[in-house]
């Protein structure tokens, strides 16, 4: 659908800028300047997306939290006017099972409670020694290999992939298959056909795995989920969707945070020194929060729709209008974070970022991601103090076209 903006402040349809917008040339770490300009006066504005519709884009920190915590704001992608990411997502709506990603409370609560068990603060803390061991082993292997090395391939991708595979009980040997399908599935430019194909391949894989776990349970999260299928609480396709969701959300995000943070820290040697010389785990934990804030890798704008009229930021979002919540921009909101474009690993309130979202959909895996990042950032620069980029910054390819920002590969070297 293509609804013309009604607000006088946003002008005629022709003036509505397109989303997504490019970042500035040579500024890989800051939000698109055109978005900043658009929302300089107000924390929300209209943008035009791929299907011609003109949802609201929200960039203010307080406004995002208010909307993400508001039961009148829905993730139900079946509602007419829902601002889908791309054609592929829109085309597959009828085929996608219900899950945490597309349901509201109370339906959401049921799905969510099945998924959260392995990711509580204490369970994840208990994994810290395992995460440390895997990190050390991966660094050993990289150091024993040729220089330059690709840090994404050597460390950033395998660590979170090993962890989520292990927790779920997905064979790590299959990682090429699921990494590739997951990566294509979340590209901006994916066609309807390709989106269905990659989703279908992952889904079939997870269905087979759930069936196997139901027959031969092991000590892993998929076996627990499979037991609920056997008990008749959820369907096989819902179980497979949970597995697919955790697998996709659980590896590329953390991998991007590792690769991108290494680039940012190498570009800010004074900040890198804070991390390398830190003896206090609290300093490392604070550094992780600041990097989550500063890098804000979820930059495509989370998709929502209003189910009632909502007054916010001096505008009224009408029932049935789409909402794009651009989390990264909120992390750079000067009302909350003084000098927001400064990377300051000692920033007091960094953890108030929206990098994991807010409201009932806030990231399930955030405690796992935090420990992974604390271990990697806390270990890498100590073990390889001379780590540096093997190519100039402008040769590094950033994931501008992906829902989660990062680097495709990262050639590094050391003395």
């Amino acid at each position, binding site marked *: 659908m293509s609804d013309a903006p009604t607000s006088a402040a946003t002008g005629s349809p022709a003036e509505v800028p397109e989303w997504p917008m490019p970042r500035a040339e040579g500024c890989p770490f800051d939000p698109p300047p055109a978005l900043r300009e658009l929302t300089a006066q107000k924390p929300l504005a209209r943008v035009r997306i791929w299907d011609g519709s003109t949802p609201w884009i929200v960039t203010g920190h307080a406004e995002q939290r208010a909307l*993400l*915590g508001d039961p009148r704001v829905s993730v139900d992608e079946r509602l007419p006017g829902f601002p889908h990411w791309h054609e592929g997502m829109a085309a597959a709506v009828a085929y996608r099972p219900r899950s945490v990603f597309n349901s509201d409370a109370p339906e959401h*609560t049921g799905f*969510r*409670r*099945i998924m*959260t*068990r392995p*990711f*509580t*603060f*204490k369970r*994840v803390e208990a994994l810290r020694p395992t995460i440390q061991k895997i990190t050390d082993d991966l660094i050993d292997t990289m150091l024993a290999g040729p220089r330059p090395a690709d840090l994404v391939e050597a460390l950033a991708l395998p660590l979170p992939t090993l962890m989520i595979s292990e927790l779920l009980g997905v064979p790590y040997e299959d990682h090429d298959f699921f990494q590739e399908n997951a990566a294509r599935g979340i590209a901006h430019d994916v066609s309807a056909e390709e989106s269905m194909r990659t989703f279908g391949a992952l889904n079939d894989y997870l269905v087979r795995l759930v069936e196997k776990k139901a027959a031969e349970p092991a000590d892993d999260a998929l076996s627990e989920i499979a037991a609920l299928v056997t008990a008749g609480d959820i369907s096989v396709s819902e179980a497979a969707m949970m597995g697919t969701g955790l697998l996709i959300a659980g590896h590329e995000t953390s991998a991007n945070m590792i690769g991108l943070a290494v680039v940012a820290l190498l570009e800010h040697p004074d900040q890198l020194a804070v991390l390398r010389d830190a003896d206090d785990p609290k300093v490392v934990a604070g550094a992780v929060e600041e990097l989550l804030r500063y890098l804000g890798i979820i930059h495509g704008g989370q998709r929502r729709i209003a189910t009632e009229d909502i007054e916010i930021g001096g505008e009224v979002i009408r029932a049935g209008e789409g909402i794009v919540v651009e989390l990264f921009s909120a992390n750079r909101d000067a009302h909350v974070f003084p000098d927001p474009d400064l990377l300051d690993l000692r920033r007091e309130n960094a*953890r*108030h970022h929206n990098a*994991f*979202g*807010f*409201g*009932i*959909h*806030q*990231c*399930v895996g*955030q*405690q796992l991601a*935090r420990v992974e990042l604390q271990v990697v950032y806390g270990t890498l620069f100590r073990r390889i103090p001379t780590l540096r980029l093997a190519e100039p910054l402008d040769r590094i390819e950033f994931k501008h076209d992906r829902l989660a920002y990062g680097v495709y590969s990262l050639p590094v070297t050391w003395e």
Partner: protein
Amino acid sequence: MKITVEQDKCVAAGQCTATAPDVFDQRDEDGVVVLLTDDPPAELADDARDAAAVCPALAIHIAP
């Protein structure tokens, strides 16, 4: 200080336990919040307030 939690609203994000582990815990079976004390000693009060502020589900309430 008087703390209350709404378990129905909790989405088990673990932010409270991470922030104030002596005040909040999470249920083993699904990670839902468990209140360890509704009136923590003064030295934990700031952490408890902080936990309420970061709870994404607005499930923690604090009366002075």
